[in-house]
């Protein structure tokens, strides 16, 4: 039960960062932390009691393996998270050039 609770606490930390921080870069990093918490949760789901890592050893074939499907899903999701973070970082750099500041309270050109 404790590992699942820790994943939830990590998600809350990320959510707190997205909502209350003023610096754009901190918002982007908090979004990234939120995504990492769900990767940990995925890896915890596939646990089987008494299982070993899902790599087939030709000398000792019959064993109980941990579920490998959530691990494959997490690999794909990590790459997607990397692409999202890279995209948002390049937008932040362009915003700094146009507006001159990283503070989100100054960036309110669009209203209504």
């Amino acid at each position, binding site marked *: 039960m404790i590992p699942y609770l820790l994943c939830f606490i990590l998600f809350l930390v990320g959510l707190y960062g997205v909502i209350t921080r003023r610096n754009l870069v901190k918002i982007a990093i908090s979004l990234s932390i939120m995504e990492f918490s769900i990767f940990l949760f995925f890896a915890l789901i596939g646990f089987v009691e008494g299982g070993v890592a899902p*790599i087939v050893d030709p000398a000792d074939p019959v064993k109980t393996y941990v579920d490998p499907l959530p691990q494959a899903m997490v690999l794909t999701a990590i790459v997607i998270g990397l692409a999202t973070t890279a995209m948002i*970082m390049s937008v932040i750099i362009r915003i700094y050039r146009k507006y001159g500041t990283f503070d989100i309270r100054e960036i309110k050109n669009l209203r209504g």
Partner: protein
Amino acid sequence: MKGMTLIVKKTTQLIAGLIFLYGIYVIIHGHLTPGGGFAGGVLIAGSFILLILANGSDFMKLTKEETGSTIYENLAILVAIFLAVSGMLFGAKIFFLNWLPKGTPGELVSAGMLPLYNIFIGIEVAASILSIFLALVIFKEEMSE
């Protein structure tokens, strides 16, 4: 940006080659040990980025590097798509089929098409992460002029 001190430059010249070799090892053994295309590609990109950071970006001519890495990225992914579609031309005519002979598990040359996919995805990931890094560095150069 300026380069770093002499100690850093000499150390990275020694280490960058080892990191590159380790990345190739992770890619090629993707069907035997954890890793595969993504992780190995990031390692290879890491070795290039280390060299650029240590030597400074005014020393290396970076815009030519960027066109080069973009072309490698697109070519690698086109070859990967062609490999996937080649399942529809040979074998049992299904998309993404593993139609090469599979060999014995545990050997380096086995598991059909998987090592080929790993190699080309590894090249693609390395080239694209290098392109991202170069785009940000070149933009910073233009911004501070």
